[in-house]
């Protein structure tokens, strides 16, 4: 299925690729399977520090030295839940319904919309 030309191409690419990848990670190391830190272990470390964590051999690539692995806290890092997107979406729908249903609904909708946008903006700080 593969022409000779293509095979040559392949070999050439392998060389290129190694050079190119050197900065990102060393080509002869396979990616580490999942982190050494399983969830269970993590739980035994209460209030895990936000830095530190596992120490790994740091390889120096062509472009840039690799920083150490960091341990960050999931709850702090992940986006927080918020009700405001729903509120704003609902208000917009309400305003457009007001366009059809009449001025009273429209005014209520606009008030809702302003309130929910203000809520969204304020929540962020």
């Amino acid at each position, binding site marked *: 299925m593969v022409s000779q030309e293509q095979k040559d191409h392949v070999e050439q690419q392998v060389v290129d690729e190694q050079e190119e990848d050197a*900065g*990102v990670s060393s080509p002869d190391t396979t990616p580490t399977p999942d982190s050494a830190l399983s969830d269970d272990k993590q739980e035994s470390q209460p209030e895990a520090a936000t830095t530190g964590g596992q120490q790994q051999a740091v390889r120096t690539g062509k*472009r*840039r030295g*690799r*920083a150490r692995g960091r341990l*960050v806290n999931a709850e*702090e*890092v*992940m*986006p*927080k839940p918020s009700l405001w997107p729903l509120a704003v979406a609902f208000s917009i729908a309400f305003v457009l319904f007001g366009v059809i249903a009449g001025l009273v609904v429209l005014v209520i909708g606009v008030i809702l919309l302003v309130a929910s946008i203000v809520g969204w*903006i304020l929540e*962020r*700080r």
Partner: protein
Amino acid sequence: MSVAHGEQVRVLEEEHGQVGERSLNWWGMVFFIASEALIFANLIAAYLYLEIRNNNDIWQLPHSNLFLPLLNTAILLGSSVSVHFAGTGIRKGNVRQLIIGLSVTIFLGACFLVGLAYEWTSLIADEHFSISSSIFGSAFFTLTGFHGLHVTIGAIFLAVCLVRATKGHFSKQQHFAVQAAEMYWHFVDVVWLFVVTLVYFVPLFR
């Protein structure tokens, strides 16, 4: 926004040198403005389509007084300078300059809107030229109205920034809202140049 991607961006930036200097929000704003620009592109395309399909002589305002549109253009271009002044201020960390720049911009934006409103009322009340009087009326009021709506939105955006600036929310490092408002305002100004050329100046050269 939340910090999940912030963490990821940090990883990408610090450890892999992958993410450029522009923030995620900057990219979002760019694509948002691109989409907005296409709204105007479509409006202008519709305007030109109708102009080509219609007889030239009805495709004109009832008067040919260019003073107001020229004044409005000058005001809007000036406001672009002042919003840039505000942005430069916060990029240097100068909140006072930011507040002054924003105030001037909002004032100029308001002047523009007043000018537009004055022109509309004089057209409708004095010259009986309204959205329903002819197809050019429909196109004229829609195009300028859409632009006016965007100026209003931009001015509100700037006003929110102004309030937050007085409360000290912005610093040299953290001022994305100002940057976004600035981008939006420049965009609105550029659109006006197209609008004013099409609506006021092109008919003069026919």
